[in-house]
Each structure stands twice: as C-alpha cells, then as structure tokens.
C-alpha cells in the first residue's frame, strides 16, 4: 500500500492546519491541502478521508465553526459523505464546523467556566473500530490537549439516546473536563462516515513536544494513534465506511 492521500481543508487562518499536515506525514500518509472555496469534485478524486483541522478559523465571533461551515467545500464534502464516497473527520474547531454544517448532531456552547481553556485531559477509547480510533485498544486511556472557549457539547435528549444506543460515542472524557453531556469528546454519524473529536491529537505526536507523561514532560504521544488510524482507514475503507483489516 502506497502512502494514502489524506485531504486537509485549509480554512483561512486555522491555526492547527500545519500541525495536522505534519501529523499525517509522520503517520505515513500523504496530506493533500484542499482550498475551502473549491467546488470541484475532482480535487477529492484520490482522497477517501478528509480532515477538518481545528484552530478558530474565521474566529468564534458568531459561533465557533459557523462561518467555516458556510464555505463552498462543505457542500462538496456533504454530497460525497451522503453518497458514501468519503469519510470526513473534524478535529477541535473542525468538530464544531461539522455540527454547524449539520453533518453531526448537537452543537457546542461556552465552557462551563467561560473563557479560553487550554489543558491536558484523560480520554477513554469507547469504540476502536472507527476511522479515527482503529489503532487504539478498546478502553485505552489516552492523554490529549483540549483548547478552546466553546468545547461544551450539547444535544437533545433524543439525539443523545440515539448516539448512545447506536454506539456512536467513540471517545469519552475519563473525568468530564468541559462538562459535556454524557462525557462526550468524540462521536460518529450513524453510518460512520462523519467523525468529530473535541481535542487536539496533533499536539501529542512527537516525543519531547507532546503531552505530560511519566517518562517526562512533553513525552506523551497518544495522538499518534489518531493519525495512524486515519491513514490505515484511508488505505482500507470499503464502500460501507467500515475499516477492513488492519
């Protein structure tokens, strides 16, 4: 298997896009930058997975992710997802974009204590069959950075029950850091083609520059598995959106 192409949407001034591109490369993928104004489906011809990176694109002024969700590429991605030709994964602000684009249920409101928070959180892998978690063990505890001012996930009781019943809550907070309902940190759509993670795995991929770890500060690289999962998935996604094999 040659290095699978992973699309990365270059939303204007998204601060994490360069780090996501680097993380994809280190995980063995070939990042393909995509312009947010593209409406040309051939741009996606050789791409089976697209990442929406985080980083406050267009600011949080209206709502986090609201203006990015109106960019032309989102219509192209929505059509490709609906025809099951593409998997789209939102990281941090990218997850907010996916809820604003109504590709994932629910939405985000201000942190319980309002303001910008930047901290390391303990998360638990609740499903390791998805395109963003297949390289982790089920129940594995990982430590990632969470940063933002609107990280509190909310949804209607009906939506929450559906997420729970269908097993679409993929990553949970060990101890709810931002008080999101049901400790939700990562979810998928019913068919598994759209996924969102409210954390920044791209800042836990290189020893010395990662999260806190018993081996020393910055030695935590638990975000590697996220990108390895995506690269694996991109090389092995069948047309039902299920990751086949290893």
């Amino acid at each position: 298997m040659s290095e699978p192409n992973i699309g990365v949407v270059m939303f204007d001034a998204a601060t994490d896009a360069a780090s996501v591109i680097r993380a994809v490369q280190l995980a063995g993928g070939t990042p393909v930058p995509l312009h947010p104004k593209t409406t040309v489906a051939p741009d996606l011809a050789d791409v089976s997975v697209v990442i929406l990176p985080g980083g406050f694109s267009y600011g949080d002024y209206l709502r986090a992710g609201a203006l990015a969700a109106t960019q032309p590429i989102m219509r192209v991605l929505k059509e490709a997802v609906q025809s099951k030709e593409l998997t789209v994964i939102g990281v941090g602000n990218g997850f907010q974009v996916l809820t604003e684009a109504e590709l994932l249920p629910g939405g985000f409101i201000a942190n319980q204590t309002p303001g910008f928070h930047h901290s390391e959180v303990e998360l638990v892998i609740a499903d390791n069959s998805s395109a963003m978690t297949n390289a982790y063990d089920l129940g594995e505890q990982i430590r990632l950075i969470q940063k933002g001012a609107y990280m509190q996930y909310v949804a209607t009781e009906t939506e929450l029950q559906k997420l729970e019943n269908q097993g679409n809550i993929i990553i949970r907070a060990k101890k709810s850091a931002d008080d999101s309902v049901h400790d939700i940190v990562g979810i998928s759509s019913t068919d598994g083609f759209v996924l969102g993670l409210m954390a920044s795995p791209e800042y836990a991929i290189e020893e010395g520059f990662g999260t806190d770890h018993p081996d020393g500060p910055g030695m935590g690289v638990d975000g590697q598995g996220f990108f390895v999962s995506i690269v694996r998935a991109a090389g092995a996604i069948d047309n039902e959106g299920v990751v086949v094999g290893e």
Partner: protein
Amino acid sequence: MPTIVVEVMPKPEVLDPQGKAIDARLPELGFREFTSVRQGKRFELTVEGEVTPDVLDRAKALAAELLANPSTEYVANVEVAK
C-alpha cells in the same frame, strides 16, 4: 438608512454559562432584584431603501440559516429598529 434588528437567545433548555457567570456577580454588586441572567446576541442589518415585507422575510431567512444555530439557539425577535 433603516436597520433590521435580529435577536438570538440560547434555547431555554440549553445551559448558558455566560449568563450564569454574570448572574453569579449580581448579589455582591447589590442587584438582588434579578433571579437569573441569560445572555443572547443582537445583530443589526442595515438596509438600503425601504424595508418591504420581502426584505423582512429575507432577514428572517438569514437569522434562521446563519445567525442562530437551532441546536443551541432560537431567533427571539426580528424587527425594524425604531
């Protein structure tokens, strides 16, 4: 030039951390008359020319499509500013 005002509020069943943070300061400042605060948003849309019913309908469409997110918010009011 006339202005259309759009007001967006957090849905009643959704937590409003900003409003709660303001609310928590009130007793110490002596404002004991108010039992809760909810914080919303006000948008002012400037219109060139007359605000016809069609223009007002367009403002309502914009409010529903972009200015409010139905998952967490609702459009509380759309009216021509006095």
